[in-house]
């Protein structure tokens, strides 16, 4: 066991602080499979029903999902991938070169916390399936706190198993996730098809009429805000904002042979998000507006459906806990990784006790992207714009500083402005990502202009747009 763990950790540490060598680059096919699998997660079972709850109309849903997911694919292909294949470094190392060690540590803590909450929602999703045979009372749409002892015990059991696997068997669960992906995609489609007659859909021609009148009716559940085309489009675009605009997938796409491998994300966005969110919305409507994913999947696909919910939550919570552990461990390298992962798993499981994490998932996902987005804007501007303005890219690395004040103020300032707009002007959190990116980009250029004047520069061979183009 010890040897296996050491081997897998070594593998994960591969090329953490150096560019990927040519021999290790991967073709389009690897990314097509990876993106398709990664975006069929347990949380997809919740997002679709929440659109129904928020009263999205059928036309708004379809057009919003089509355009939003297309924009997400374009963000991967044109923002993240071109930098990834040029620098071929992990997000963390690229950020360290720009921001310095200390600021990256702060980023890692925030990142790890976000990962914990995200994994918590996935554990809660799995728990809704595990609770079915034990008749556990599922949390309702308005529940914010643990609804019963049974719920707490179920979440604790699921969280403990997932954490143990994250400590001991990351590689095995990753292989298991690969096996599950094609089957899970079909379960989503099949379950939705099977319940259509219950909703009155008996032919493909009647689908649209029933979709408008019985599924995405345009009327929200009482007490919930009405979602429009714009909500759906921005949510679909920014659901993975941390990964594309936030540059999280630099770590993945650095293995790509060509920048256009970023288009492989279309499998995740269209087979995963678009199809899965629509299917789970149909399941929710067929279950009379119920939201807990376990029961609605069980009602439409029986044991296979419940198993799909359990597996979808488990296989995505596991790497998320592991990543959170890695982020924390990079700050405290002396603490053993299994101890860090165990603590992260505990925090995640406690977070999963609270159904608010699942029932308010749309808001949380939007916040998650927003918090990490400014760092993506900083990387983009640092790579493409800063050298063209006569300043130095990778400033912390060039000047050997541990804390880039320009980057820190950009990050905190952007979030302060965006969250102020949310709190004081009631601008919906879904709409803040786009202006937020331009605020971060502008702030970083202006602040770098002021900040870089002060420091003495040492020449350093850095990879930036100017040195390539």
């Amino acid at each position, binding site marked *: 066991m010890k040897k296996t763990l050491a081997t897998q950790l070594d593998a994960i540490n591969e090329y953490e602080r150096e560019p990927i060598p040519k021999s290790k680059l991967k073709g389009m096919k690897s990314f097509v499979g990876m993106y398709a699998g990664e975006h069929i997660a347990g949380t997809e079972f919740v997002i679709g029903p929440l659109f129904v709850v928020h009263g999205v109309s059928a036309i708004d849903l379809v057009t919003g999902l089509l355009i939003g997911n297309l924009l997400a694919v374009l963000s991967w292909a044109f923002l993240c991938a071109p930098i990834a294949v040029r620098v071929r470094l992990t997000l963390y190392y690229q950020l360290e070169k720009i921001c310095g060690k200390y600021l990256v540590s702060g980023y890692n803590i925030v990142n790890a916390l976000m990962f914990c909450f995200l994994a918590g929602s996935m554990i809660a999703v799995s728990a809704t399936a595990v609770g079915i045979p034990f008749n556990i009372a599922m949390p309702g749409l308005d529940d914010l706190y643990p609804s019963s002892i049974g719920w707490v015990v179920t979440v604790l059991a699921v969280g403990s198993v997932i954490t143990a696997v994250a400590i001991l068997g990351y590689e095995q669960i990753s292989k298991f996730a690969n*096996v599950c992906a094609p089957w899970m995609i079909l379960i989503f489609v099949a379950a939705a098809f099977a319940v259509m007659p219950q909703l009155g859909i008996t032919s493909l021609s009647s689908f649209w009429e029933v979709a408008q009148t019985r599924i995405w009716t345009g009327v929200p559940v009482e007490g919930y805000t009405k979602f429009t085309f714009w909500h759906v489009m921005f949510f679909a675009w920014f659901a993975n904002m941390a990964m594309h605009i936030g540059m999280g997938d630099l770590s993945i796409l650095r293995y790509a042979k060509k920048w256009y491998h970023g288009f492989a994300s279309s499998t995740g966005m269209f087979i995963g998000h678009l199809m899965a969110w629509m299917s789970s919305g149909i399941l929710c409507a067929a279950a009379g507006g119920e939201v807990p994913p376990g029961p609605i999947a069980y009602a439409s696909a029986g044991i296979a459906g419940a198993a799909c919910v359990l597996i979808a939550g488990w296989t995505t919570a596991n790497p998320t806990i592991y990543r959170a552990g890695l982020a924390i461990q990079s700050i405290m390298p002396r603490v053993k990784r299994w101890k860090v992962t165990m603590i992260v798993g505990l925090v995640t499981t406690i977070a999963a006790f609270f159904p608010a994490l699942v029932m308010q998932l749309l808001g949380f996902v939007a916040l998650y992207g927003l918090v990490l987005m400014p760092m993506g804007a900083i990387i983009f501007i640092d790579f493409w714009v800063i050298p063209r303005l006569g300043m130095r890219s990778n400033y912390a690395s060039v000047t050997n500083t541990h804390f880039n004040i320009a980057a820190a103020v950009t990050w905190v300032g952007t979030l302060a402005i965006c969250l102020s707009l949310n709190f004081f002007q009631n601008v919906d959190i879904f709409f803040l990502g786009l202006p937020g990116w331009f605020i971060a980009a502008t702030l970083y250029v202006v602040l770098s202009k002021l900040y870089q004047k002060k420091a003495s520069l040492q020449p350093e061979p850095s990879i930036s747009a100017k040195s390539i183009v």
Partner: protein
Amino acid sequence: MHTILKLISYLGLLLTVVPSVLVFLGKIELDFHKNLMLAGMIMWFLSAPFWLNTQNEQEAES
């Protein structure tokens, strides 16, 4: 051996998706469809792990 395993896996996937179309067309009941999906799941998970990951690893190496 791989061919047989693949055949079982694909049959499992067919059992996962085809019954739902039959329910949609009114040919079978929802409960029967659930049983067929369970059978499909068992077939998939008993066969796919033995060839799918091996194939992925070979593709990654080539």
